[in-house]
């Protein structure tokens, strides 16, 4: 094993070395600046937003840790770190080229491997960084759905699969000039900041993982009735949600990929409104059912609103953001009960938050887009949905994209997890699961000096 890893690293290093010798476009940025003296504001805008999106890794780590038990907290930190580690390396080597390289028949990108040759350029590096933090987000969503029972080794390999294949190829179809963006309906399939590309992908790969793994020990009683497995810290879950909410102010407004698109103000307001509406509806719905103000579901509702508004945020006005967020809050509540009642164990609600609401976000563009803004630009074609006289055309494009996204993510995720399960078994042993993954898998309890009890 060690020898294999060393050999892999050696090949990796040699390839990078060769890349450095190759022809470069504008690695210093001097030419780009001379050509466009306004570019610094865009560069700073995109990078700062990218840093915010990166920080969402911390948000996911805290939400998942908070919603899971203390005996698996180390394992969750390990997984939430390794997916961004692998995303950085793999996306640099393969993912970016497949996603944003020169288009081949609308299916894949084919240039820019290892950020090599012409890609040694400030503009391409900027785009790489932006796409990388998104790839990392898509990857990290899954860790919640498979929490408390997936082997670390399987997660390690899964991170490679998502960032090398599943995310970049679908991303190419929508954002890299691929076939979905060229659908002959509406303005083509559009997904402003990634309800589909990032969240639906993450959510449905997560569903595949949860199905292949099966539920955690104790999640269902003898009559297969679902039982609550309370997480160990609502405080951490709330902190994580605030971090994600904050990170989303980079995720959505930054997706204009230019500070010169003053639409960023509209995007920021819409993002916030949907989060608020989602949280309000989720907590009220659970209150009506149980007569308790359920914080966990409110946090999920907030994230649901954010996920849903991610696709439409640039093409809608404030009232629509509230409507989209409100529906998202309802979807997440219904979704959490729906999956549980069908024997699917998703410890943090990732499938409902990201999967279902990612789909709703894509569809909502076809309903609420108001025709005031184009494809990342202020000129035509504008995106117009059903309620603003755009007819069904955009909605059809959105439905096709959503169906493709769900099928692609679920099928590849399912095959990936099944194959790994066949080769080495992706689930920890029952003894390890009961003990918690922290000590058997990592040797490190998350809270060594605290009294923690397991149930």
């Amino acid at each position: 094993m060690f020898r294999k890893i060393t050999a892999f690293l050696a090949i990796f290093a040699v390839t990078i070395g060769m890349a450095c010798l190759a022809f470069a476009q504008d690695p210093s940025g001097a030419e780009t600046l001379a050509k466009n003296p306004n570019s610094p504001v865009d560069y700073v805008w995109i990078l700062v937003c990218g840093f915010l999106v990166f920080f969402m890794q911390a948000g996911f780590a805290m939400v998942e840790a908070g919603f899971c038990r203390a005996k698996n907290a180390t394992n969750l930190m390990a997984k939430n770190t390794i997916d961004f580690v692998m995303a950085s390396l793999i996306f640099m080597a393969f993912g970016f080229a497949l996603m944003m390289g020169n288009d081949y028949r609308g299916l894949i990108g084919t240039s820019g491997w290892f950020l090599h040759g012409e890609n040694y350029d400030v503009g391409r590096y900027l785009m790489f960084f932006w796409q990388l933090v998104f790839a990392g987000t898509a990857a990290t969503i899954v860790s919640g759905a498979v929490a408390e029972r997936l082997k670390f080794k399987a997660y390690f390999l899964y991170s490679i699969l998502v960032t090398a294949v599943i995310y970049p190829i679908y991303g190419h179809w929508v954002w890299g000039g691929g076939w979905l963006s060229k659908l002959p309906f509406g303005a083509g399939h559009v997904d402003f900041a990634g309800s589909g590309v990032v969240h639906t992908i993450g959510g449905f790969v997560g569903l595949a993982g949860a199905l292949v793994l099966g539920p955690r020990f104790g999640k269902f009683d003898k009559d297969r009735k679902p039982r609550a497995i309370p997480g160990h810290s609502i405080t951490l879950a709330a902190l994580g949600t605030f971090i994600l909410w904050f990170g989303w102010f980079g995720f959505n407004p930054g997706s204009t990929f230019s500070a010169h698109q003053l639409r960023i103000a509209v995007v920021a307001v819409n993002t916030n409104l949907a989060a608020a509406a989602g949280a309000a509806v989720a907590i009220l719905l659970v209150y009506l059912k149980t007569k308790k103000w359920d914080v966990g579901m409110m946090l999920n509702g907030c994230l649901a609103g954010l996920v849903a508004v991610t696709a439409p945020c640039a093409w809608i006005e404030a009232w629509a953001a509230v409507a989209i967020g409100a529906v998202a809050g309802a979807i997440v509540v219904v979704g959490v009960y729906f999956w549980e009642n069908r024997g699917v164990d998703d410890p943090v609600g990732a499938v409902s938050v990201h999967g279902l609401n990612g789909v709703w976000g894509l569809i909502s563009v076809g309903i609420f887009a108001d025709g005031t803004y184009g494809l990342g630009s202020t000129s035509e074609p504008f995106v117009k949905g059903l309620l603003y006289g755009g007819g069904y055309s955009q909605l059809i494009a959105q439905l096709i994209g959503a169906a493709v996204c769900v099928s692609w993510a679920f099928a590849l995720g399912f095959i990936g997890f099944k194959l790994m399960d066949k080769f080495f078994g992706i689930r920890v042993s029952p003894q390890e699961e009961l003990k918690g993954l922290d000590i058997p898998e990592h040797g490190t309890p998350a809270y060594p000096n605290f009294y923690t009890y397991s149930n």
Partner: protein
Amino acid sequence: MKKIEAVVRVEKLEELTEALDKFGYPGMMVTHIEGHGRQKGLTEQFRGREYKVNFLPKIKIEIVVKDADADKLVKAITGIARTGEIGDGKIFIYPVEDTVRIRTGEKGDGAI
């Protein structure tokens, strides 16, 4: 000598500590425990789903006293720990054979 073992509500600890001190028993052993009596558990809720908590947090106070003091202390503890609601707790009283103060080797009532 008698050992009084009182299982009481968590929020009664401070008041009981003060009272025992007043009776001349500044020393005590306190354990945070979980358990339930006849009232069984509670229902809590996590992300929209309710679940039963079978064991509730309680405080166990152990104190060894002179035979003569036992009755009035039990009465005092009962008075303070009682709210009249289910879950007030229980008091167990045991005979104690002897007590040794480790520092001096003293035995009996004087060692308490």
